[in-house]
């Protein structure tokens, strides 16, 4: 009985993923293109950087990167506090 439930859930998941794969968007062809067009047309000249991804990550959406760096900083400090202190005893 339990195995049957597991198999049916797995089949349901497979069917869902197959459906999602079949109705996938064509690559490089999003619905809303206003913001993408702005970045593609003005990003290189405004920031002077050839890599538009770097321009978005460090300039247009820099706050996200600041949060990411802070998370890594907090993780390192946490590891240093929790595990690094056992050495000095």
């Amino acid at each position, binding site marked *: 009985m339990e195995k049957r439930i597991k198999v049916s859930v797995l089949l349901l998941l497979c069917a869902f993923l197959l459906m999602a794969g079949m109705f996938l968007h064509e690559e490089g062809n999003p619905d809303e293109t206003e913001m993408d067009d702005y970045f593609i*047309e003005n990003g290189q000249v405004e*920031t*002077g950087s050839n*890599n538009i*991804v770097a321009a978005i990550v*460090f300039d247009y959406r820099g*706050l996200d990167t600041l949060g990411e760096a802070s998370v890594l*900083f907090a993780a*390192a400090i946490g590891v240093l506090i929790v*595990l690094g202190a056992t050495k000095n005893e």
Partner: protein
Amino acid sequence: MSKEMSPIVKNVACVLAIPIIIFGLYIILHGHLTPGGGFPGGAIMASLVALFLIAFGTGWAKKINKGILSWGESIGLALFGLLAFLGLGTSFFNNFLANSNSLFGMSIPFGPNQGFLWTGGTIPLMNIAVGLEVFAALSIIIPIMFSSDESSKEGKK
């Protein structure tokens, strides 16, 4: 428990050190021209620390100066935040150095070009800051996880 590995592994790790460092620095410094940036470059350079730990064992892990790495981590994050705040005349994270003919301030026309290193404004500086921060943070985390078990055992004795 985790002692040194064979001389072959140690020698190969030593030979691989220079290419890994150069590749990581390339990924960081060319972050505004080619795919990559501070985070992957720092992770590549930190994977060298993991390789050395596996090859040389706990004895090498105790030689790492965690004070300097902690300072590097703090300086990286502070530099990143400072560069973000310096553009506050217009907005937070404003790229005030781009197209200004000063530090990394060369302006480029729209379209494909061969890639000039002296462009990008604050983006290369932020790449360097984030690369330093990620490298130092990961090089703190991995040796501590590697050597914490044995040091706590020694403490119990």
